């Protein structure tokens, strides 16, 4: 497992308490899980994602990630409608481990309430939270 100072936490992202990240991208956002989360889970073997068009409220379970001996629920950090999913995770779930912020993204969402974006943490706040969990 990585030490906290070994984690890759990009500046341009927002983070949620359940370790999802959010990237603003025009009208929509992309969501994935952080380097910390993928490291804790270990080798990811399967990612279950929702169907395009599904609508969620903030905090709803929108999918699961599985390692060999664990299943973790994914909670959506903002309300909205799913406008795209990362189909390449179907055959290559390891992208979540190897490239959590680029090719390992999970869903694209059209925010229902853009104000919720302001409630997310920036890099520093997230880092502080992780330090507090130690």
């Amino acid at each position, binding site marked *: 497992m990585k030490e906290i100072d070994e984690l890759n936490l990009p500046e341009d992202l927002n983070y949620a308490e359940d370790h999802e990240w959010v990237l603003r991208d025009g009208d929509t956002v992309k969501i994935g899980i952080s380097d910390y989360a993928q490291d804790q889970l270990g080798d990811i*073997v*399967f990612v279950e994602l929702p169907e395009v068009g599904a609508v969620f409220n903030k905090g709803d379970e929108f999918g699961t990630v*599985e*390692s*060999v*001996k*664990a*299943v973790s629920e994914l909670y959506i950090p903002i309300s909205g409608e799913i406008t795209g999913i990362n189909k390449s995770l179907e055959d290559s779930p390891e992208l979540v481990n190897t490239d959590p912020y680029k090719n390992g993204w999970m869903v694209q969402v059209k925010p229902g309430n853009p104000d919720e974006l302001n409630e997310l943490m920036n890099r520093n706040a997230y880092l502080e939270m992780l330090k507090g969990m130690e």
Partner: protein
Amino acid sequence: MRYLPHTEEDIKEMLQTVGSESLDALFSMIPENCRRSEDMNLPESLTEWELDKLMENLSNDIAASPEYKSFVGAGSYEHYIPASAQYLLSRSEFVTSYTPYQPEMTQGTLQAIYEYQTLVSRLLGMEVANASIYDGASALAEALLMSIRITRKNKVAVSQLVHPLYRQVIKTYFKPSGYEIVELPYLESGLTDISGLKDLEDFAAVAVQSPNFFGCIEDLHTVGEMAHEKKTLLVAAFTEPLAFGLFKSPGSLGADIACGEGQSLGIPQAFGGPALGLFAGKLKYVRHMPGRLVGETVDRGGKRGYVLTLATREQHIRREKATSNICTNNSLCALASAMYMASTGGTGIRSLARLNYDKSEYLKSAFRNAGIGIPFEGATFNEFVVKLSGGSRKAYDRLLKKKIIAGLDLAPYYSELENHYLFCVTETKSRAEMDRLVQEMTS
């Protein structure tokens, strides 16, 4: 007692190590009011030789071949089991090991189960089979629950010609959840009436058994087409998998899940258990499947090996969201069936299935020639229904006195079928025995 290795000296020294005065004192953490006050009241212990006598006496008080000639099947079939398979199955490395959670030490079990999964898939014409369920009935209940998970619909249709006892088990499994079961009636031909399928809306699955409880071969292909039109899954059940040595497999006829009893494949009848729940499905539904799965992989040196896999479906990881609560299954029975299928091979299982078919057809025509009615005329495997004239119970009882068990009375299961009996013939019945049966029944 020969199973308890401790000498008095061992006990004394070990008690010293743990700092306890006596064996009783080891239980000091159990509050006084939780302790049992009197000794258990059980029969006194027997020597090995006394036990042998007792068990022989009990087992002699059960009707068995060759003294009795039984023509009863109905979900439990008498087939020959090769000595080689019985002998191999008693290898204690298989018998006395646990579920293969530590693959480096259980490659024998793991490779054998992987082979079993493959043989079952090939037999049923399906893409993937699990490592077993308890029996045919629980396999069917699990299959219907799996259909409900896949389709997110909460009604199922079940043919009345699915084994009546299996239907009872489904009801037990479904009772607390409130899922609805609609029964499909049967026709005078001894086949399921599927005409109602076109009106069924929002059904997760339709379950049809083939060969059905009357031994008749159902038109699974048409059932599948009608079901799929409604986005309903076809669950193909069976009690006699040897049929697929000769008849088309459920997978080739469009089944989404095939499940049933595997006892025929080298497992003793043993008063109905342990038996073997065969369970197979389409690969795209594998993550909804109940039970264990073994998969192929490689070790650190690149050598081929086998592990339990896709375990995140299971109870110990996914807990209340698991695809089933099953944990211990019927692994050793699965191994027995794999040994049996390996012994028959493709050529042997076809010959054997053919022989079963020929023998039951022989008895069928012998009955017909003797003027005994065969109410359901279509193709059957192994089993078929006969209609006796009134007073059939008398004939049954008369034959019983001669140690011939003349079929299964269907009236307790289908009240409209008074004087109807379900007969079964396997490779274990000779022509002479069948001739005698017919002769005794008509005398």
